[in-house]
């Protein structure tokens, strides 16, 4: 695997839309060609080379390409957007849409990321060592197809509307989450090791929410369904089991209604 290192030297005055920073766009290109890749600063077309110092060269394919992003990219959007393979490492904080529409590969953000990370993601792995913003693994505005595959791990906290319209895949948050978890979701699994605020699982059709800490306000559409023992990351624990959202439609499998599940650690 070949590594390309891009270092922010000339930070943009406005926000930079850089969906070309992905192993797919870099694959098969030398540093000079990568510098020519298009980006937008506000509504002005520009190139990557105007902002970043680029060293190394990419592998022949996305899978053979690793990108390391250094410097202050807190005003750069769409890092790793639609990436299908390879690796992307962001050393600092990043703006919106990190790893959005990603289908494969590994993305590591060492700092915080803003909203819409892993949006409508289909595959691959995202690790965020800091905090994630709102709408992590959710659906695009208006869409009903949220994250459907892959894994997201947040070592810090996550914002609101996590996993909205989620269809599959798994999100783990080691810290706390804000309001609205897996709203409207029809699949997938969310593990919150810390606390959750309110509106957890509103309109949940199918899918699992596992919460280790407290829930500020429980949704009225969930009803108790006994206790369950689950093994999460190799640790077995007892959870109170709730099913819901009872105000929402649910499929039937073999005559049984399939509810969404909410587990809270006892």
């Amino acid at each position: 695997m070949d590594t390309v290192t891009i270092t922010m030297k000339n930070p943009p005055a406005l926000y930079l839309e850089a969906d070309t920073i992905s192993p797919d766009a870099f694959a098969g290109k030398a540093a000079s060609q990568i510098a020519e890749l298009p980006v937008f600063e506000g509504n002005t077309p520009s190139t990557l080379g105007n902002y970043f110092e680029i060293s190394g060269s990419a592998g022949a394919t996305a899978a053979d390409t690793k990108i390391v992003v250094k410097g202050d990219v807190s005003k750069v959007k769409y890092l790793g957007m639609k990436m299908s393979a390879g690796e992307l490492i962001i050393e600092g904080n990043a703006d919106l849409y990190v790893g959005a529409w990603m289908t494969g590969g590994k993305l590591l953000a060492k700092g915080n990321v803003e909203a819409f990370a892993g949006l409508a993601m289909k595959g691959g792995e995202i690790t965020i060592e800091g905090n994630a913003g709102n709408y992590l693994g959710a659906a695009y505005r208006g869409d009903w197809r949220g994250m459907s595959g892959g894994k997201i791990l947040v070592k810090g906290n996550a914002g609101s509307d996590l996993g909205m319209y989620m269809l599959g895949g798994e999100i783990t948050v080691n810290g706390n989450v804000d309001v609205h978890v897996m709203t409207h979701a029809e699949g997938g699994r969310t593990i919150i090791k810390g606390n959750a605020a309110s509106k957890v699982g509103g309109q949940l059709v199918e899918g699992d929410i596992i919460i280790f800490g407290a829930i500020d306000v429980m949704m009225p559409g969930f009803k108790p369904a006994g206790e369950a023992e689950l093994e999460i990351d190799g640790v077995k624990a007892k959870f109170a089991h709730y099913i819901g959202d009872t105000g929402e439609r649910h499929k039937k499998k073999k005559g049984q209604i399939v509810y969404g599940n909410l587990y809270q650690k006892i």
Partner: protein
Amino acid sequence: MTEYIIKNGHVFDPVQGIKGDKKDISIKDGKIVDKVGSGAKVIDAKGMTVMAGAVEIHSHIAGPKVNLGRIYRPEDKLFTCTPTKGHERMGGGNSIPTTFKTGYEYAKMGYTTAMEAAMPPMFSRHVHEEIRDTPIIDEGAFPVLGNNWFVMEYLKNNEVENTAAYIAWLLRATKGYAVKVVNPGGTEAWAWGLNCLTVNDPVPYFDITPAEIVKGLIQANEYLGLPHSMHIHPNNLGNPGCYETTLDTLKLAEGFKAKNKFGREQVMHLTHTQFHSYGGDTWANFESKAKEVTDYVNKNKNITIDTGNVTLDETTTMTADGPFEHHLTGLNHLKWANVDVELETAAGVVPYIYSPNISVCAIQWAIGLEIALMSKDPMRCFITTDHPNAGPFTRYPRVIKWLMSTKAREAQVNAFKHKDKVLSATSIGSLDREISLYELAQMTRAGPAKSLGLTSICGGLKPGMDADVAIYNFNPEKPVANPDDIETAFSRCAHVFKSGVEVVTNGEIAATGNKRTLWVNAKVNDNPQVMRDINEKFLKYYSISQANYESLGHHFVPNPFALEVDATHV
């Protein structure tokens, strides 16, 4: 204006009966002419197909429900933005494109006239503002009348003359083009949470039936002698077994004859026939009844139809058939918008994915093609996708490919997950007809123009007609190596002229043209009763005043083209 002469092209023009002969087409001052001077600009169309500009008879491209779709479906615009380029302004959207993209895309495919098929009269101003902002193509809009309180009250008492006077007033007030009927009575019933699923279901409160509304509107339409006929989306759309309601609706036209000065012969236009040709009684035994419906249409010359072809895309359904959209959101669980338009109509919007992996969608695809292939008279069956309901209009080239090539149809059938079910529920597998270029010109140009009463203006290349010309990079003398070549050729024209202005060159917009709004100005005898009723309804029921209702002046209709109708002699 620049004079043009189009040389060496293979011309297909049903208006003059030209079937691919090499013939020069001359253009001067916006019209087709016999001769131009020696200084005329020569367009070499060697090895190309030359047709009149295409005429879209039924599409939802302007107005409040289209815009509601745009507003509540930002995901439809995702990754579709095209930046400003040359003559083109920024555009976007797939099934519900921006007004600008709508104009450009129609023009690039060789369309020069399009009809917005459902204008809520109360929101005609919005419709006309969008029409104004849709470049290049001439457009008209059909006000919906099948659930209108005035119409139902007059027709309940058999007052055809008053209905006609009201229609004439409404066409003038809303700058409308034709009488559109959507789920007659059923949309009004929806205000009570009900529907009319047969032509004999009574409309609550109004005590009238869909059959009475339809017959009355045919009579009023012919009393006025409007350019287009009553244009109907019947009751019971989209349900298994709905073809029986469709046949019952078609039979309502029996005994009526067209009366107009525009050369129109039909008294009823049945739209998006595909959605009305379903058999079976559940989705499990859902099947095609295209044969039953087209057999009836083939025998009855006072009816024209359009197909409503399913294109197997993700799209946005939108209709004044309010109860149908509620039914649809219950089936696919996707977001639903619903609007009530006071005394006039309603509308609903729901996204829909016609998946080739779902047997019902694949059968719908086959039914749309069956209707076109089983229709014996291409001058009475027109190609539409009921944009965006069965698919975006930008898919016309693909529909044309399927109609012109059995090979392309077979390839699609083989790609279906439930191929056997499609073949047993339809007869698509046994239809070997391939639509010829001449028939295509009938189904997309001469036919719809005649049905709309525009025969003397567009849809043909006869001297004196508007110089709307489309030139396709398609050589009719060469065998088609790959059906996809048909789709490519019909996607982007080599040249398009709209009223004598070259608006498309090599598939790119070359000028934004001289867009007109077509409307019908019908003169009737003074009718104090109807004027009093209109005044009273505005005072008693409408949430806006009459002065704020009408679409007047330069702001709404900057470049009007009125078709004059005189019904005062009656």
